[in-house]
């Protein structure tokens, strides 16, 4: 079996953005779980969606807004 080599090189500000993105998704998951536990599935979904939407610009920059295209 061949070794799988993964290389990840991130600048400090990219790491910070990744952490922010993860924090937003974690908060969304907490909101989802909390709202489900109080019997509000619609609010739970909307809460999660809210945090996902907030995370979208950061995700778009991380994955698409980078050199090497055109």
């Amino acid at each position, binding site marked *: 079996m061949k070794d799988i080599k993964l290389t990840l090189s991130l600048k400090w500000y*990219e790491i910070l953005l990744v952490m922010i993105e993860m924090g937003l998704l974690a908060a969304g998951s907490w909101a989802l779980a909390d709202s489900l536990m109080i019997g509000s599935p619609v609010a739970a979904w909307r809460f999660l969606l809210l945090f996902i939407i907030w995370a*979208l610009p950061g995700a*778009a920059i991380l994955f*698409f*807004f980078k*050199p090497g*295209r055109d």
Partner: protein
Amino acid sequence: MDNKKKYILISLWSATALTVIWFFAAGLSIYAFLTFFVMLATSFMAWGLSGKVTDNMRKKAIHGVNAFWIVMAFLFLFPFPVPDRPEYVVGEVHRFSEPNHGWGRGLLGALGPNLVYHGLVFTPAEEIKGLGDYGALPTFVTTFPLTRALFGATSITDGLRDNVQHGGEPTKIVPYAWTTWKGASRENKIGWNKGDLLLGDVAQKVGYETAKYTPEENALMIKEIGLWLGSMTVGICKVDPRWFYSHDFLSMGTPLDLKDVKEMKYAIQVFTDQNWRRVHNDPGHSWWSITKSGQAYSTSAWIAVRMAQMLRDMGYKARVGHGGINYDTAESPFSVYNGLGEYGRLSDAVVPTAGGLRFKSATILTDFPLAPDENKQGHGITKFCEHCDRCARACPVNAIPQGDMTVENGVKMWHVDKDKCVRFRAGNLNGNCCNECLRVCPYNKPDTMFHRLGVYITRHSPISAYLFGNVNAIGLEDWLDFETSSWAGKYNINRPARWIQEDEGFKMKFPYVIGKYVFTEDDRSTAEEWSTGVGAQMGKVGLKYKGVVWGKIPDRLLDKNGRNRNVHWDYKEGELPKGLPLPGKYMPIEEVTKLLKSGQLYTGGWYKKNDDVYPKRSEKYEKGLLKYEDAVKMWEKE
């Protein structure tokens, strides 16, 4: 980059900029706020896919997003100093007359006879007859067996509220078990227990030692006992004598002389949850609504009468006020001045640690020395309510004000149209009372860690009210739409508004006398014409909200006869007999004046002129601007 891509990018960024304009133009719309993020992401993605991006551009973009979220996190999560409680008292405050509060006016007949006897719609007259001892029956309370059981419990505890009578209450004193003394208080004070040791958690905090009975120690003990007895939270404050009702409801007009209660310097307030499960899931058109009140009132009452008896047994005076209508005082000021809550748009105190508006409270007035809770710091609730109108939008009869606060009786806050509110709640033909303002309040959530974080943010963050507020149906709570998740679905917010009306052309005749109390022309309801059906389309009836028309009964709620299945539609059309008598009577003004002057009749109401109130107002407390802190100091010296 070719021109086509360039134009697409310019269009996307222009659209993103437009969402910012939309956000501010629409009064901080949550939809604009979210659209901005979607557009921003789309623009960056399109740019990245179609344009030339340099390392420097990427770096700047990431720095921008990072900076935005760091600033937002700081603004939302940093423990900014909490603003002081707003100064609500801005003018001359008069004591409130209990017969003149909404329920008093409705049940005693000042709003018309049909409202008083609306229970005839649901319950045969023979069954209602004899259920109550005090004039007109609160028949909306006695319609259902569970409601009777729970509200009935408050009648049982009424006699245990005190062992002496002041101002007509308790109406019938019931001796507490295991006690032989009958005076107001014991001569010899005794301690917490035989060994006089501090108990439980208090001992853990201050040491297992003999009680010194300092006010601080007493307050700690009272709080622990209150929580142990089942109160959600316990508040302690000094008493402002203006909170005492000037006239009593249950004995129909008996005045309360402040001299009789001058030893009541401290107030302990206990709280009972009406329960998220019920409040969230059951619409006002179900019979749960008033039943929830009965549950929380009787539970609070039971906590309070037992604690009061303990204080009396220790040798002190203790007097309980509990619901439904067994209070000596207005209740909400206690929740504000014991530091637990603030006044909200509903005119009531919102207490975050008690489910916002979802509680019922009882109060023990006592001379037992207690250290009051800190009450200078606020909770940001009044400020939040300035940016939130969910309760006002949910009110079926528009009784809750939208817009700014106003001044009534020297108090600057939002003032509910109590006549409209009571007429709908007492006379709701599609249910039993109401529930909507409590249910849609953003503070109405179970006490989870996540909700506590929300309350923390609301309290500390300088921008949360702007983004979380809900004026014009565009706030975070509207986006989350908790209502749709409730068992009754979106019809909770949109139920039919149908309530007992007075006969066509009805006009109340004053002076109207019931018991010892006189309602005068000054007491005429501003909603009197509306009560006869004129302008009945006021409120939200007929308007669309979230795609559903107000006033239309949803099919799934109808029974086979086309009636709302949640209530007992066991009467024939006509709803109530014509020309029902009022429980009180009209009396000529000359005769009334004579009886008022001779002290045989009484009348009150904060809005009346000094000369029109019997007995006369206190020159000391009810004249000029008197802040809470000053009133309390004066009362301490009485």
